[in-house]
């Protein structure tokens, strides 16, 4: 079978015929009976018909597929124009008139030939009976269904019409339908336009004719109706499609008869799909959309749409149904596509077409709109969203929150999670802890992770970048088109993932505040070194200092000064230790000397340790200025020796100071993400170090206590001797 090229008109016509023959609505095969009837109606001899059938391959296949049908039709046209039937001539013959099928009414013949793409042919139109949508009452007929798809649209062309009525052997149901249609026609003159129509109608009460004609007529009325629709909204032009208003509508339609070429074009295009919107119609709809909503990517809210469509004077029930059909994403607002679909349906309805139960495919809005609509819509007008308890208003609002939040979090500038290695390697522990302490980080999970260790000490810290975490969460939730926080929408089972709990969860988490900005010289290695030093020192120095300092609890303050002012130390120690006995004093002195030496070294090391400020921050002392160093040292020794009452107040006093410094630090970090991450890393290191330090100190404390006990025992043992 050679491929068949058809002109647009032919395409439409054949398609219509095919649908007509497609009684079983299979869309693939035309029933043989109907096809043969049709062919016979072409007024060709049976032989020719048989020949055609053979040629098109139907006899081979045993049925009429669409291609076979089309070929057959073309052959019929060939035959009717007297050309020999050849397969080759299918495509070669140009300007072949369309095949004609005789119904038995001359008028019809003339009608079809006249109806075809003669752009100048306005006349036939007006003379044609727009068999009115008496289909409406007749729609109960099953046969009606056959016609329905063909004729239900404003865009259907006249070709649809004629073949349907043509077969003289049309089933009984047809005739019945026609009767009803004609009855309906009387009832519904609105679809009929022109004075010529009524007489025409009467002329064919019982005929099959006019049946489809009205379909063809729809485009002109459609177009005219538009014009009137918009120009004179409330009162005049488009009265409801009711019999009573017939006259008015007819006059209206005749008035706007200027659009003939457009009608035909409209008929020509989108023939296959009766509900398709032509370009001109679409343009018109778009213009209308613009009057309500200048932004073409925006929404028309429900209330505005309601007003607009109420002007069409359709009953509210029908408008409600149209809305249900056209509001595809059920958001209570109309996008451009939805609006066009709704408008199209309104226009169709006004012209007497029944509303479909389901939205026709050609009217379905593009699904990409859904994605757009979920994004913050610039054009989302401020008009009330009172009718929408559902997701999309909340979605835009949720989305709109982001830009604000993001801008407010310039410091953070991070919305998506940063992968963090959770392995307990030393370095990474430090990193992680540093990261956690960084308030800049808006990683939704990191605050959670950081929460337990950090929250206690960092709760007081400032710079909560908490919105960042909700942003991160809202981000993910919006992607999944999630619901708003309303229980109603959360209960809806439509494509909504529910992440409502997580924002609340995150709200409870205070993001860790940034740690104090360490020295520029601070590096991981140095902190490690510091740790090493510290442990070394701690191991060595503590033991030395502890014996003497243990008994001198009350002198702790003095002792701290002792450290700072090394000269005075022995004296003080000596004084303070005198009471504890010669042995102790000896020990003290020894210890003092040793301690002095050790302390010196320790101080050095501690000075080194100071520079990596991580420990400093842990200790709660300002890492930056040298003057605090002695303070730190003192604190350090105190920590090493034993926590003291003074220690606590000092510590607590220092802690706020540290907090303050820590709080002030992140400002200086800058917006640089890398810098932030680096600082996060450093902070984490600091944290690790501090934690380790803490554990070490605890250990030392334990050891020291043991030492103390042992020393006291010794003392007890020795004391009797001392008395002696």
């Amino acid at each position: 079978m050679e491929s068949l090229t058809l002109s647009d008109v032919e395409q439409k016509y054949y398609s219509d015929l095919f649908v007509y023959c497609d009684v079983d609505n299979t869309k693939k095969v035309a029933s043989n009976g109907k096809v043969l009837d049709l062919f016979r109606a072409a007024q060709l001899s049976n032989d020719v018909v048989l020949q055609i059938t053979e040629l098109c391959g139907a006899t081979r296949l045993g049925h009429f597929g669409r291609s076979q049908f089309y070929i057959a039709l073309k052959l019929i046209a060939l035959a009717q124009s007297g050309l020999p039937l050849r397969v080759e001539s299918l495509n070669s013959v140009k300007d072949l008139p369309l095949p004609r099928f005789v119904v038995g009414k001359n008028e019809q013949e003339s009608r079809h030939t006249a109806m075809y793409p003669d752009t100048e042919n306005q006349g036939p139109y007006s003379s044609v009976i727009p068999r009115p949508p008496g289909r409406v009452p007749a729609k109960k007929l099953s046969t009606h269904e056959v016609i329905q798809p063909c004729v239900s649209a404003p865009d259907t062309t006249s070709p649809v019409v004629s073949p349907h009525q043509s077969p003289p052997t049309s089933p009984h149901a047809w005739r019945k339908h026609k009767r009803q249609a004609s009855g309906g026609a009387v009832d519904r003159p609105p679809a009929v336009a022109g004075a010529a129509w009524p007489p025409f109608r009467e002329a064919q009460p019982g005929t099959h004719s006019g049946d489809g004609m009205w379909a063809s007529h729809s485009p002109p009325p459609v177009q005219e109706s538009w014009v009137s629709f918009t120009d004179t909204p409330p009162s005049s032009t488009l009265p409801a499609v009711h019999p009573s208003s017939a006259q008015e509508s007819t006059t209206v339609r005749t008035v706007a008869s200027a659009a003939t070429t457009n009608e035909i074009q409209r008929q020509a295009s989108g023939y296959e799909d009766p509900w398709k919107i032509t370009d001109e119609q679409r343009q018109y709809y778009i213009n209308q959309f613009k009057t309500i909503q200048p932004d073409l990517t925006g929404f028309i809210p429900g209330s505005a749409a309601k007003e607009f469509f109420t002007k069409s004077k359709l009953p509210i029930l029908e408008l409600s149904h149209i809305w249900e059909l056209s509001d595809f994403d059920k958001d209570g607002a109309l996008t451009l596509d939805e609006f066009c679909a709704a408008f199209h349906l309104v226009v169709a309805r006004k012209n007497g077409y029944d509303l479909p139960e389901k939205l026709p495919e050609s009217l379905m809005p593009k699904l990409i709109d859904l994605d757009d609509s979920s994004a913050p819509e610039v054009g989302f007008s401020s008009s009330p969203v009172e009718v929408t308890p559902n997701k999309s208003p909340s979605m835009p609002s949720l989305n709109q929150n982001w830009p604000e939040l993001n801008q407010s979090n310039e410091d953070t500038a991070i919305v998506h999670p940063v992968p963090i290695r959770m392995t307990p390697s030393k370095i990474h522990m430090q990193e992680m802890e540093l990261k956690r302490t960084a308030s800049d980080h808006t990683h939704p999970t990191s605050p959670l992770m950081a929460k337990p260790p950090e929250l206690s000490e960092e709760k007081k810290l400032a710079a909560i970048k908490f919105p960042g975490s909700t942003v991160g969460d809202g981000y993910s939730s919006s992607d999944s088109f999630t619901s708003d926080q309303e229980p109603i929408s959360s209960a809806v089972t439509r494509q909504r993932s529910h992440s409502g709990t997580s924002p609340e969860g995150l709200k409870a988490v205070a993001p860790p505040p940034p740690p104090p900005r360490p020295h520029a010289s601070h590096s991981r290695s140095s902190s490690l070194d510091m740790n090493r030093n510290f442990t070394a020192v701690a191991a060595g120095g503590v033991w030395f200092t502890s014996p003497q300092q243990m008994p001198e609890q009350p002198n702790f303050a003095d002792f701290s000064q002792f450290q700072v002012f090394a000269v005075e130390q022995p004296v003080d120690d000596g004084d303070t230790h005198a009471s504890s006995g010669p042995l102790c004093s000896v020990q003290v002195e020894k210890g003092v000397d040793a301690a002095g030496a050790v302390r010196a070294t320790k101080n050095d090391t501690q000075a080194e340790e100071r520079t990596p400020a991580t420990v400093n921050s842990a200790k709660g002392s300002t890492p930056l200025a040298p003057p605090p160093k002695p303070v730190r040292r003192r604190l350090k020794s105190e920590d090493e020796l034993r926590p003291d009452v003074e220690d606590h107040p000092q510590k607590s006093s220092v802690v706020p100071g540290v907090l303050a410094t820590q709080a002030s630090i992140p400002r200086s970090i800058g917006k640089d993400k890398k810098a932030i991450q680096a600082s996060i890393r450093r902070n984490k290191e600091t944290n690790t170090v501090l934690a380790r330090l803490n554990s070490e100190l605890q250990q030392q404390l334990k050891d020291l206590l043991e030492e103390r006990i042992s020393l006291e025992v010794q003392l007890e043992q020795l004391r009797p001797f001392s008395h002696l």
Partner: protein
Amino acid sequence: MAVCVAVIAKENYPLYIRSVPTQNELKFHYTVHTSLDVVEEKVSAVGKALPDQRELYLGLLYPTEDYKVYGYVTNSKVKFVIVVDSSNTSLRDNEIRSMFRKLHSSFTDVMCNPFYNPGDTIQSKSFDSIVSAMMVQSS
């Protein structure tokens, strides 16, 4: 598996009521009406708590020998009542919940329609179809 589905407005008048027509519809209307008392009772019992904590699904309101009545109330005090035939193998609670969820969802869609005035009877075809699906499913 419903034999009757009803949507009652806040002021306790029906917005929508539909029964499997084989039965005496009046009986169902009466049943639904009486079930409203039970609904009120349940709502007021929990109503002291914040609306957030109030469960929308009310569960089995009361059983009779012939059928069971389930209730569901929205936050706007619109009540859904489903009457289920007892002879049906007892539906799991989840199924009833899902039915209510569907009802609620399509009710929301009806509400979204700007042409629908709250307080009008529901004449939406999509709502009808959903209800029919629920009812046909049963019988």
